[in-house]
């Protein structure tokens, strides 16, 4: 028992000595590694800035009240994205009302209540991990077979939103579990020691403490769902809708409209597509801003 431990500590000491020596005479390898790290960071940043710059340059001249107020039109002078914007926001709201509570409840159950040594809990956990890796188009096919045709819901907004909700469940569950796991056990034990029930501890102590992490994960899942096209095309989202969509009507969403506009021959539509991308970005930034606000608000408590 003693032998390996001592060897490990000797190794550790040598590693510390090496790194201290390196600080004095920065080795070539270290410099190369630093440059590599910097370069990697730049790749992402440069790509992002080029994208943002192109979109803003092409889209800003087209970002006008018409785009927000009008319905899509074959005439670029009149074309707007109102029905698509409304549908995208509605889908986000449906997701917040349906998928988020289910995902968070699942995470709380698996993390706080479930008997972890049972085979069926392990099976559920394994399946959730697997679900996160399934391509979005598969969810689309499931939605088409089960919701649109099986339940006879038809190609309506609710069906699209529910399938996106199903798709984002694993992402949110996994990140919410991480957040719950990060809450120190002393919080739970402290609550229990004071005579609180398990439910009270989870509801009043653990969950509020985990909110920042849960919010971040939820927004990531939600943002991905809002930018999704493939499964919605599969469940029958239209591309031209001129009325304001309801839960049980046909609909189109911003990514689909953008995709359609980019492909049209008239140059004006490419500008309009860029402008619609800015609108989509604005919606996403607003949602992210809300998550950050929530994280700051609840982090101060702890």
């Amino acid at each position, binding site marked *: 028992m003693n032998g390996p431990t001592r060897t490990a500590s000797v190794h550790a000491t040598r590693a510390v000595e090496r790194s201290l020596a390196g600080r004095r005479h920065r080795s070539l390898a270290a410099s190369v590694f630093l440059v590599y790290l910097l370069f990697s960071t730049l790749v992402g940043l440069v790509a992002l800035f080029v994208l943002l710059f192109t979109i803003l340059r092409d889209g800003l001249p087209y970002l006008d009240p018409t785009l927000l107020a009008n319905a*899509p039109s074959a005439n670029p002078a009149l074309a707007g994205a109102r029905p698509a914007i409304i549908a995208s926001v509605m889908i986000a709201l449906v997701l917040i009302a349906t998928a988020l509570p289910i995902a968070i409840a699942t995470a709380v159950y698996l993390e706080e209540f479930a008997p972890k040594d049972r085979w069926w809990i392990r099976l559920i956990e394994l399946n959730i991990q697997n679900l996160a890796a399934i391509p979005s188009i598969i969810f689309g096919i499931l939605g088409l077979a089960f919701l649109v045709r099986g339940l006879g819901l038809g190609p309506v907004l609710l069906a699209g939103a529910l399938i996106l909700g199903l798709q984002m469940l694993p992402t949110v569950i996994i990140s919410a579990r991480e957040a719950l796991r990060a809450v120190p056990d002393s919080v739970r034990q402290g609550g229990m020691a004071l005579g609180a029930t398990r439910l009270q501890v989870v509801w009043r102590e653990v969950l509020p403490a985990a909110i920042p992490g849960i919010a971040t994960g939820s927004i990531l899942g939600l943002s991905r769902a809002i930018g999704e096209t493939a499964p919605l095309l599969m469940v029958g989202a239209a591309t031209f809708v001129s009325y304001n969509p309801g839960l049980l009507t046909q609909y189109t969403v911003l990514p689909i409209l953008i995709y359609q506009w980019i492909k049209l021959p008239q140059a004006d539509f490419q500008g309009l597509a860029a402008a619609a991308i800015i609108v989509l970005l604005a919606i996403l930034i607003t949602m992210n801003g809300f998550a950050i606000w929530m994280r700051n608000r609840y982090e101060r408590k702890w």
Partner: protein
Amino acid sequence: MLKRKSLITIIAVAGIGAALAACGGGRSSDTSAATTAANADTTLSGSIVVDGSSTVAPLATLAAEKFQAQAPNVSVTVGTSGTGGGFAKFCNGETDVSNASREIKPEEQAACDAKGIKFTQLIVANDGIALVTNKENTWAKCITTKELATMWAPDSKATTWQDVNPSWPTESLKLFGPGTDSGTFDFFTKSINGDEGASRTDFSPSEDDNVTIKGVEGEKGGFGYFGLSYYEQNMDKLNLLQVDSGSGCVAPDTATVQDATYTPLSRPLYMYFSETATQRPEVKAFIDYYVANEPTLAKEALFVPLADQQLAQAKTVAAGLAG
């Protein structure tokens, strides 16, 4: 503290975006409000579900938009599942109208029969496939269908323009075209190589024809094909090739596409109306509206309008439908 800063940054960026947005005004044509037509028919109501070919979609969209100005209580939606995807839904009874860039296939017909779905086929416009080259391409003005087959055959070894025609230079050949899901790809391969989908695979495919335009524009030895409307919107950037199918060189234009002398790359575009749909007054009204305004609609959607004879036939078909 840092997190607070990042929040402020995000708000600032959003704010700058909104401020810049106020500058506005990039659309090239005048923005006049879309108004309901004076002779609007408010007695019609209901919804019409259109899906299918993305090539036909701009035409269907335009028709839907104008028809809704006439019949404000009718809502028309247009989807773009592709010709095949559209028929799959149509023959499952999920849509009223199916756009198609080719005729219905026997197996699709069988699917419709199995579900007891009867339909009416209407030719709604004509489209030509434009063959384009780079602006600096001075050698190729006209290409024979045989040369096209040399260029695009599945086992083609042509890597330079000279391989296609010995009198052309050794400039290397850079091929661009639509992706394999596209109806235009199906049509081109069938017309040139004889079999639908038979094409060499070492070209740059794109579902977005504007990408093909950029590709040909940037490569001296570039060659690409797509719907005629894309060439007409980009005449200043590309050269158009004439096609010789044995009876001389013909360039695609309204006349040659209408009478199909621009062969074999002229094609009609279709809409399929299900019988249950055409029995509904709002769908019948939509068809009547389309047929009555076909030349304007097709031109505005950048397609070639129907020839007189085709239009007369379409009118007969429409008149034969029960109101």
